[in-house]
């Protein structure tokens, strides 16, 4: 700043002193004003908003200490240096001056050179402060903007907030923790808790692409593992070497009443029985965080948990167990488990955990974000999420496309050999249908039908897996392990899928034909059981076919089960 624009205020009752200082200051090119006592000095401060204040310790009226104190209190968003001037001060007076906010003291008599140096040194400090103010303000603005963007883009899309309770408290304005929920086309629920390295703005780089990938792929019906693979690829491209994303993903299968859990670098996830508060199961990290390597480990498999309506899954980031008290002790897992248990008994999990944290940490500020996700596993509560058949909406879609309708079409696809292991055709088919027919609620049921038929053709047909393995929870894991091995080795075999679409007066129907290279499988008992309604609820296998028979008007297996025809109907 040009000297001309700097203003210095002198508060001194001695006219000779004032005159001398005024001359020196003016000679330097600064503007100057003066006041004989403290009270008037404050008025002048208001008038001129000076850049530096000189106070004689023996100025009359209000004491120099009080004047200094008042001026510092007035200068809230700007640094105004105060220079005390005196012939002598004892130790106590000096410390009083500094406590009141004085930035330096100069003793009379002083040389012109010393006085000038002091003034320039003060201005140098002031300009540092002003840079700091500007930077802090810019950072605050940036963070507020990011926070806004974050809450609209990232968190606004979350679903089922009354059943999936998300609690978070950020260490800084902006959090490195991301909590996402989304609904799959077949009614399943995907929940993700992610923790980026560090916090503040830099950890937000990955949050938006993470949320976009998670939502878009869940919407399109990609499987959780495909979503995780894609997130890993994105993060690997995007994040610098030393940054990564730890995450837990839970996929609640509403139809199967199972939870599939992936834990990559997060603290153990918990399954609690909410009726007793008992910790039923924990899921430890089994994979490094995402974004470190271009590919996931070869043998990644989810932990599969059969659910009851009382189960609640608790996910949390390390900030909660690493919260510290004044002695430097961690809050730790045991306190968290105990607070959660009490919370379930008293039906207020979040309240109990917050209270326990507050009692433990008192008012100590925390280093890391704290976030907790509490998932209600009573799958029946999620059934209302799938949009009901809204006839008005379907009618609008039909009006839009009616001029293009020429009746029927058919579409087919064949997959063979290792392509069967690499490609999931169901999202492709659903996309194709939606390309042709436009979006509609009827595709959700169709999605389930196609998936079940395809999985049966692949698992029992091409791969020749025996589904009786799935009769116990342990067998479930074994089943998926075996599937993984056979997929890896897959070099021949095929699945052909053909769809025929017919529109009719009340809606439409889709004939689904699927044939595979396998020698068939035992399908009759399930069909019979589901016809008589006697399918044992303890059986893990056979649910797929039961679902398909419920959703389809007709289901017929041919060639021992290696060919299937289903008719899926809907009304507009």
């Amino acid at each position: 700043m040009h000297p001309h624009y700097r203003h210095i205020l002198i508060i001194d009752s001695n006219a000779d002193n004032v005159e001398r200082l005024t001359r020196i200051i003016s000679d330097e090119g600064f503007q100057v004003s003066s006041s004989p006592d403290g009270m008037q000095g404050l008025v002048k401060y208001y008038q001129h908003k000076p850049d530096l204040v000189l106070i004689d310790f023996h100025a009359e009226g209000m004491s120099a200490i009080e004047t200094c104190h008042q001026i510092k209190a007035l200068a809230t968003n700007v640094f105004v240096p105060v220079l005390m001037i005196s012939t002598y001060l004892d130790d106590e007076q000096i410390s009083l001056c500094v406590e009141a906010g004085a930035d330096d003291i100069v003793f009379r008599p002083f040389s012109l050179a010393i006085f000038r140096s002091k003034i320039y040194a003060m201005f140098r400090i002031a300009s540092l402060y002003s840079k700091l103010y500007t930077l802090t303000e810019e950072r605050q603005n940036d963070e507020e903007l990011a926070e806004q963007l974050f809450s609209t883009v990232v968190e606004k899309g979350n679903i089922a907030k009354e059943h999936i309770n998300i609690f978070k408290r950020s260490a800084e304005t902006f959090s490195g923790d991301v909590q996402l929920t989304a609904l799959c086309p077949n009614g399943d629920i995907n929940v993700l808790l992610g923790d980026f390295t560090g916090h503040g703005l830099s950890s937000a780089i990955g949050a938006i692409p993470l949320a976009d990938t998670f939502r878009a792929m869940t919407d399109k019906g990609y499987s959780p593992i495909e979503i995780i693979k894609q997130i890993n690829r994105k993060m690997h491209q995007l994040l610098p070497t030393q940054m990564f994303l730890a995450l837990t993903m839970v996929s609640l299968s509403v139809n199967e009443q199972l939870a599939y859990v992936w834990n990559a670098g997060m603290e153990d996830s918990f399954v609690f029985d909410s009726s007793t508060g008992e910790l039923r199961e924990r899921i430890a990290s089994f994979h490094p965080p995402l974004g470190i390597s271009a590919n996931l480990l070869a043998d990644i498999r989810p932990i599969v948990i059969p659910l009851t309506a009382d189960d609640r899954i608790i996910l949390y980031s390390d900030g909660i167990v690493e919260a510290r008290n004044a002695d430097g002790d961690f809050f730790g897992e045991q306190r968290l488990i105990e607070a959660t248990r009490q919370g379930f008994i008293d039906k207020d999990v979040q309240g109990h955990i917050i209270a326990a944290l507050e009692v433990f940490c008192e008012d100590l500020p925390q280093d890391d974000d704290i976030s907790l996700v509490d998932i209600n596993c009573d799958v029946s509560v999620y059934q209302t999420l799938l949009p009901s058949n809204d006839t008005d909406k379907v009618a609008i879609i039909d009006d839009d496309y009616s001029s293009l309708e020429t009746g029927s079409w058919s579409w087919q696809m064949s997959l063979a050999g290792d392509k069967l292991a690499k490609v999931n055709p169901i999202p492709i088919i659903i996309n194709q249908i939606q390309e042709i027919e436009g979006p509609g609620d009827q595709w959700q049921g169709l999605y389930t039908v196609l998936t079940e038929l395809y999985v049966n053709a692949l698992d029992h047909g091409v791969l020749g897996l025996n589904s009786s393995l799935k009769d116990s929870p342990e067998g479930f894991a074994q089943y998926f392990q075996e599937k993984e091995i056979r997929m890896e080795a897959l070099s021949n075999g095929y699945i052909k899928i053909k769809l025929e679409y017919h529109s009719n007066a009340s809606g439409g129907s889709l004939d689904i034909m699927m044939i595979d290279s396998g020698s068939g499988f035992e399908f009759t008992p399930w069909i019979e059981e589901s016809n008589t309604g006697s399918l044992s609820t303890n059986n893990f296998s056979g649910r797929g076919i039961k679902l398909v028979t419920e959703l389809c008007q007709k289901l017929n297996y041919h060639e021992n089960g290696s060919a299937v025809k289903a008719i899926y109907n809907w009304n507009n």
Partner: protein
Amino acid sequence: MPVVSSTSSNNKDVLITVSDRFDFSQYKLFRESYCDCTIAGTEFRLDLSHANYMDSSALGMLLLLKEHADKIKGKIVIERPNDSINKVLEIAQFHHLMEIVR
């Protein structure tokens, strides 16, 4: 000194010792402890027996060291982490990425 490094007489090993807290405050010292060593096949041994805390930014620093070691076809070995640090390494499943000797 929180980070000390020494090179063995055969010039093949670099021993890095991190004491006390292994976190972002050690970033510069930690990086300096290995970045000048570009001899192919160097083994970087990271002694954590004197460290008592490790956070996620330290995991990031390990990844940077690994990147450096990979570049010169060297390797890294994490030695003697205490229980709490081992827990951090275990949650991050870092044994899939580098050798850890307890």
